[in-house]
């Protein structure tokens, strides 16, 4: 109980800290919306007035992009990859080994705070207005909403584990450019964040389906727009849960190796 209380304090402090960086909130929101407009226009052009493509209506596709950019905003409010890398390089993370808490867990709880702040002050109001004024499809029943939120949350946790793991690899690498490329490629393409998996060529779709990244964007958004429905929803949630466990275990493994390296080799 006391443990949870301690981690919760990280959430509260991160929430407060976010309010100091008001400019960052604005610039992040700005770029989020620019990308939304960009991808919205690209998809409008690609549909070229057609009602439907690959069995998905234009409205559903537009909704897909809008929800995707919303989730993008949520996920980007967490500690970004470059920041984790920086904290590894400066030894900030190594020094935190001296504290009576679990480091990956503390960063997760701090991220909850930053995300909550960003959602309350920017994302929710803006996307509420977007849904109000744009012609988009909303889930009609409450259960879909609940499954979507659950699925998006699982996606958030998976993204957290993946990003943290990639960041911690900095402990073992002199040159991290390759890691960054893989991470951003997976996050933008394999996750289905800008192109839904059903538009992928068969081989790429197969690859993407067997990787954890689709859990971050593709699955929750598909639930939202009703492309995944009925019992498929539970299959999707099951897949996400499976990947969360796997990614968490990998994060633990990498973290153990990293902290082992710190305490044996001095970082």
């Amino acid at each position: 109980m006391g443990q949870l209380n301690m981690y919760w304090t990280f959430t509260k402090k991160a929430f407060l800290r976010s309010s100091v960086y008001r400019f960052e909130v604005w610039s992040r929101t700005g770029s989020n919306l620019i990308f939304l407009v960009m991808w919205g226009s690209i998809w409008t052009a690609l549909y070229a007035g057609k009602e439907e493509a690959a069995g998905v209506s234009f409205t559903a596709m537009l909704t897909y992009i809008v929800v995707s950019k919303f989730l993008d905003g949520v996920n980007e409010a967490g500690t970004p990859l470059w920041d984790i890398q920086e904290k590894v390089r400066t030894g900030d993370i190594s020094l935190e080994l001296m504290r009576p808490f679990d480091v990956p867990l503390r960063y997760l709880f701090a991220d909850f705070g930053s995300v909550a702040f960003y959602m309350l002050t920017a994302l929710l109001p803006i996307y509420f207005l977007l849904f109000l004024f744009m012609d988009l499809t909303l889930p009609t029943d409450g259960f879909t909403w609940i499954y979507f939120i659950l699925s998006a949350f699982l996606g958030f946790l998976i993204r957290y584990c993946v990003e943290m793991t990639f960041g911690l690899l900095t402990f073992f690498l002199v040159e991290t450019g390759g890691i960054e490329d893989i991470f951003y490629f997976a996050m933008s393409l394999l996750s289905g964040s800008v192109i839904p998996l059903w538009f992928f060529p068969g081989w790429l779709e197969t690859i993407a389906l067997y990787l954890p990244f689709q859990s971050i964007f593709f699955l929750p958004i598909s639930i939202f727009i009703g492309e995944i429905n009925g019992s498929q929803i539970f299959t999707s949630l099951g897949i996400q849960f499976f990947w969360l466990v796997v990614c968490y275990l990998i994060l633990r493994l990498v973290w153990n190796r990293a902290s082992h390296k710190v305490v044996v080799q001095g970082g």
Partner: protein
Amino acid sequence: MSIIEVNGLHKEFLIAKRETGVMGAIKSLFKREFTKKEAVKDISFSIEKGEMVGYIGPNGAGKSTTIKMLTGILVPSAGEVTVNGIIPYENRQANAKNIGVVFGQRTQLWWDLPTIESFELLKAIYRVPDKRYKENMAIFQEILGLDEFINTPVRQLSLGQRMRADIAASLLHDPPILFLDEPTIGLDVVAKEKMRTFIQEINREKQVTVILTTHDMEDIEKLCQRMVLIDHGQKVYDGEILAVKERFGKMRTLVVDLEETSKQLYVTGGALVKQEGYRYWIRFNRDEISASDLITQISQTHNIKDLTVEEPVIESIISRIYQEGFTEQHETVHI
């Protein structure tokens, strides 16, 4: 058992050799060569509750490495450490609750939070009860003057303010043991003095056991009765500071400026340790020859323009030990 026990402590680092050039980089993908660096070699000491010990040595001697092993963020290559009955690296989190740590070189506060928020976070991390928190904060406010900058983000603090915040933060959870790695580095004279007073006070009032590393011998002289001196990872001295002074304190240095036309100076009873132009540094043992005898001797053959006799402060004693090792200086070498 003593509150801190260190026995036959070793730490070696493996440093990967960086190859140069493209071929080197490719080669290192397959086979990395390592060089061994022994940072700490066979160090033992034990420290009793309430003691304040100066842990000193030249750059790269292995001080910070030792401190890190005491905090548990470094595992010894060999030897034993116990801190308050706990083996730090085996039980890092339990150890963390018993110790306060300040690394003067870097802050452990959260960089972008206002100072007060960092304290509140630490309060939650160490589960400091409200009452203790308030009492401790009141003491820190009073002695360290934290209220001046309590709402400023840590990154905007001056070095002296940051150091004050850091030491207060390290003591928030009332640890019985405090490790201070260069707590006065970069501070001005006044700030140093304040810091020393504070350390002295918490040691006296709360019986906090302190290990202090520093390059400022005044810190040691003002705060510690005992010092452990290490060099190249090995212990060269462990004992009272007074004893060192006694032992080396007999040595004096006579500095004379001679007339510009003088011929080379030769003295008996003292050792010429340095010469710059017509200024000579002559070291002598007070028990063997008096300063006035030396001066008389010199003035018989040379014209003295100016002279001073330097008494060794702990500073110069230590720097001589760094340079020449810990052997008693009896030289009456005649140059």
